């Protein structure tokens, strides 16, 4: 199997055209299974500690719907952009692929900027890692997600830049595909964060 040559004609579904590509996709799905346990553990910890504000600001006092809604909108849209990118990949249209990936990255960066602003704002209100168990759990869960977004942005950029030089091949196609899988995953995690951390944190007092 001549897996590393640039093909004159790129096969259909180029991300799965080689054994290496298939291995990577399966391995990455499994990795996401492990990531699910990781975030599941963080969610469980957060739910156990979310009412323990230790006299500091509570979630009802902190969270602000417009900001969180804007962040959610940005990230969900970026996830849609990455779907468009995979469609472009399957059409073997590199130009479209690069455009949609660039849109994904820009929206992701905007999301990250909002999150950084949010963290700075909360810190100024006395809600920090060390202020309470709620603070520790909040920054760890949401921060882990933010770290994933930041890593994803760097990852996609590195794939985009190397493809400018290498072109769309059976080597670069799986890289795009995996980066998009990853991006969807952190998007799904955000849906849960939006629900469990923000929505459940804004309604009522103590729940559950």
């Amino acid at each position: 199997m001549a897996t590393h040559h640039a093909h004159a004609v790129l096969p259909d579904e180029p991300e799965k055209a080689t054994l290496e590509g298939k291995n990577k996709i399966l391995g990455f799905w499994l990795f996401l299974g492990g990531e699910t346990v990781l975030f599941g553990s963080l969610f469980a910890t957060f739910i156990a500690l979310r009412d323990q504000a230790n006299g500091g600001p509570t979630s009802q006092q902190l969270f602000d719907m417009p900001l969180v809604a804007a962040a959610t909108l940005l990230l969900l849209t970026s996830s849609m952009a990455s779907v468009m990118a995979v469609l472009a990949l399957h059409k073997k249209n590199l130009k479209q692929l690069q455009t949609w990936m660039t849109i994904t990255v820009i929206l992701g960066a905007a999301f990250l900027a909002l999150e950084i602003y949010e963290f700075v704002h909360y810190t100024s209100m006395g809600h920090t890692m060390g202020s309470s168990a709620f603070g520790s759990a909040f920054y760890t869960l949401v921060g882990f997600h933010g770290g994933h977004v930041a890593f994803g942005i760097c990852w996609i950029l590195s794939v985009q830049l190397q493809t400018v030089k290498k072109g769309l091949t059976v080597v670069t196609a799986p890289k795009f595909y995996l980066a998009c899988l990853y991006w969807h995953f952190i998007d799904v995690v955000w849906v849960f964060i939006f629900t469990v951390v923000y929505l459940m944190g804004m309604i009522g007092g103590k729940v559950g």
Partner: protein
Amino acid sequence: MSAHASHAPKRTGLWDWLTTVDHKKIGILYLIAGGIFFLAGGLEAILIRLQLVYPELNVIGAKTFNELITMHGTTMIFLAAMPIIFALMNAVVPLQIGARDVAFPFLNSLGFWLFFFGGVLLNTSWFMGGAPDAGWTSYATLSLNQYSGSGVDFYVLGLQIAGLGTLIGGINFLVTIINMRAPGMTFMRMPIFTWASFITSGLILFAFPAITVGLVLLMFDRLFGGNFFNPDAGGNVIIWEHLFWIFGHPEVYILILPAFGIISEVVSTFSRKRLFGYSSMVFATALIGFLGFMVWAHHMFTTGLGAIANTLFGLATMLIAVPTGIKIFNWLLTMWGGQIRFTTANLFAVGFIPTFTIGGMTGIMLAVPPADYQYHDSYFVVAHFHYVIVGGLVFGLFAGLYYWWPKMFGKMLNETIGKWNFWTFFIGFHLTFFPQHFLGLMGMPRRVYTYLAGQGLEVGNFISSIGVIGMTLGTILFIVNGFVAAKSTQKAPADPWDARTLEWSIPSPPPEYNFAQTPLVRGLDALWVEKMAGNKGMTPAEPLGSIHMPSPSILPFLMSVALFVAGYGFMFHNYWLVGLGMAVNFGCMLARSLKDDPGYHIEPEEIEGKGVKA
């Protein structure tokens, strides 16, 4: 893209070992590193038993005793048992499924080096302010800054790095077994050791992230002012217990399932019979793996979760006895009517069965919550888990090492030394741990550095400490045997045991490409099927052709060193070190992504030139 290099890059000596991505060499690296940590953990055990040989001794003192029990447990589980399991998985699984390598050779190397440097980081604590002393379970609040020394920081960071390596290894074997099987090797034709490795890898995938989160939370509490486990700021110490055991219980099945796999292979080969109840064996392995995630709270019966939770977790625990019982009967019925040969490997396998059954039986006793209130934190628990981990896993590993040594190293281990090894270790083991059941029932608590005279505990403790001599002798004999084999000029044949599975169809040790031609698998016990059909070897599934091999790389080593350095940076709040380590780590990842690995090819002439054909 440039053309493929047609020759293997010539690398020799240390550089070859640092850069290798060959699963067979990585298996040997795992064995050596795991073996060294096993000796360290064993030395710690000797000192523990020395302290306890007579009542009210003060040989090493209470503080050192706490460090020793913590490091003994942590080292044996994470740095000795798991790596030696990975050694055998690496050496055997790709051969058993007829593959030329694992799915991700680069990640295989990365997994090894991460484990190795995580282990080294943990052990440097001895020289840098004291080892961790909060027990291998490191329960909060005992493991927080107020109550324990800086050693726990090494525990937290060392295990994160090593755990990452284990997780990578688990994913690698899952993909290898799903995607890399030879033609005809269906799931229900896979050798049982491969099945066990498959399910163990699945458990690793879903169990290790939980401990990673636990360690991260503990790290935040200890180093960055977090409040997860600080009740004064609203924290909750039970979260640690849950996260630890959600990992910790599957972990014991991660350890024992490969041993079950080894025993199945060894018993079947040396009974010259097909494994009895192969399908039920696969089913039982999968069921144990599944139930293994449902029982973690049986470690927490005395935490106060309530009668309902305790009952459910107790019942779920007892359920595991059913698939385990299936296995024990299957081994016995495999031997029934077989032409049994008591080689050293088979002695360990046959010794395993009753020993492990005793451990399983005490496990059922511990699964009864009201009774557990009596056994909890006593030597009864210590006896129980040593029966399953040493009497189960370590016996299994010895059996596997004697069985596959010729395949790994191309030399036979000496059978006479091997038999001495077995009997000294076997007798020493039972002398050490059998009396501990009674010590526990008499009320001797674990993790306490001494005991009083006149309470009836002297005899049991004395016998227990004497037994250590036997296990030490057995271990030394094994090492001697390894060196004797290395010095020996006699080469091992391809199939020294008249065995049944694919790894025995190729030379010992196998060439770097394993199979010159991928074999065609025509049934369970693929090689035995061909032997019974009167064939000399496997039928090839492809013509002789050029074989593509992955290039060696130093990046996994560098990345692991970088994380090791960053680990010190976190511990000592030196953010230059953190930045340096992380920059090198991410730089290596980027380099790996940017530079495509064209690999190299081994041409058919070279294969035939070596006189090797599958």
